[in-house]
């Protein structure tokens, strides 16, 4: 097995990178100017976080790969992001629900990582946590506004929730990488985030008058590099310039 810390850092970096790319696709297409700005600003925060995680991943790996090499020159099977973040943007409500489910988890994860025994992980997490607190306030507010909105918006948000729900289970499953990092005190064990996440989600869904799905998820594999059909399309766009013009500089 490759170094668990390297693998874990890729997971963190790839979640942020892929979700950032997804949100960036809303630029110029948001339902209102304010939302357009918000989606792209959140994307920018996530991109900054991705850069910090991937830079560190490259250093830990020690093979001379920097953040750009890791972002632009890996194929889909080498990406370690959760499946949820690569799911299509869908309609605006889908994007909002995806964001909320992720933000609610992300803030609990970062709070745990802020206590990491690895000082570099701790400082990146503490920095990111401040940004994510703002993200989750916004996405939770939108879930409530749309869930407890019109009959149509309510129905759409309920449908979004049910469609995305099966993809949330893998976040809380342990695997050798996760267990190794938890044992070394580098990161909180994935299963420990389940209860706090569920409590956050439950509270917001209740105010949004949305029904929490009762079934558990069954879609898994992102952290191990087994992805949905959507990731390849996303990477084709993300990586095009570097693939077509290797070494091109901005």
């Amino acid at each position, binding site marked *: 097995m490759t170094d668990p810390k390297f693998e874990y850092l890729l997971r963190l970096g790839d979640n942020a990178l892929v979700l950032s790319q997804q949100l960036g696709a809303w630029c110029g297409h948001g339902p209102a*100017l*304010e939302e357009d*700005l*918000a989606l792209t*600003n*959140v994307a*920018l*925060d*996530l*991109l*900054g*976080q991705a*850069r*910090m995680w991937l830079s560190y991943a490259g250093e830990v790996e020690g093979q001379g790969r920097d953040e750009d090499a890791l972002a632009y020159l890996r194929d889909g099977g080498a990406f370690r992001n959760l499946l949820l973040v690569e799911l299509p943007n869908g309609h605006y409500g889908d994007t909002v629900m995806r964001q909320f489910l992720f933000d*609610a988890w992300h*803030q*609990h994860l*970062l*709070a745990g990582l*802020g*206590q990491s025994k690895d*000082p570099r992980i*701790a*400082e*990146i*997490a*503490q*920095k*990111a*946590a*401040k*940004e994510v*607190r*703002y993200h*989750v*306030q*916004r996405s*939770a*507010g939108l879930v*409530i506004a749309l869930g407890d909105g019109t009959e149509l918006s309510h129905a759409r948000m309920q449908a979004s929730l049910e469609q995305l729900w099966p993809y949330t289970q893998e976040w809380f499953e342990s695997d050798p990488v996760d267990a190794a990092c938890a044992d070394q005190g580098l990161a909180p064990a994935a299963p420990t985030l389940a209860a*706090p996440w569920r409590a*956050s989600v439950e*509270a*917001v869904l*209740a*105010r949004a008058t949305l029904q929490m799905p009762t079934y558990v998820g069954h879609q898994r594999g992102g952290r191990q590099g087994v992805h949905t059909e959507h990731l390849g399309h996303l990477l084709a766009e993300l990586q095009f310039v570097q693939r077509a013009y290797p070494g091109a500089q901005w």
Partner: protein
Amino acid sequence: MNSALPSRAAHPPSVAVRASQEQLMGWLDQVMDPEVPVVSVVGLGIVREIRWHDGEDLPPGAKAPRLQVVVTPTYSGCPATEVIARSIREALQSHGIPDVEVTTRLSPAWTTDWMSPQAREALRAYSIAPPVGSAHAGIDGSQVVDIAGLLGAADRPAVPCPLCGSRRTRLLSQFGSTACKALYQCNSCLEPFDYFKPH
């Protein structure tokens, strides 16, 4: 910005050997945030340390004395970060310090609580409402938001209008023209304005 300005070429810089901390901070106080050009990097609170290096702690081949400026980023993805590092190097070089190294320090994470009173006043005069209250945003990062608890407009502190001073203002958009700002509108004078978010 071009570092080879004609006025500087006319007066070749002499090495300001070991300028004092006060002098250096004074020079850096002239380096403005490119996105909020009335607030300096010092006023913003992102300059964390200035250190002269000479002798043993210099990397091989580096000329003494070398000046290290430690800055902390505001937001992770803020595109101004790289411009700021370049501006700092150029400003100090123009004062005769050829070897300036700008390094980044993440911890403790930047907070708007570090903004100087002068910087806040400059923001207000520039029609940007400065952050209200302390960010209290737990720089240990261990706190999580009680998301069920703080969502209503009533929970947000009033942001006084930087133009007329009225406290009857409302949030238009949680994000504004840059990552660090939100967009508000004054219900009294009706002007929309930027609000520098507590962070």
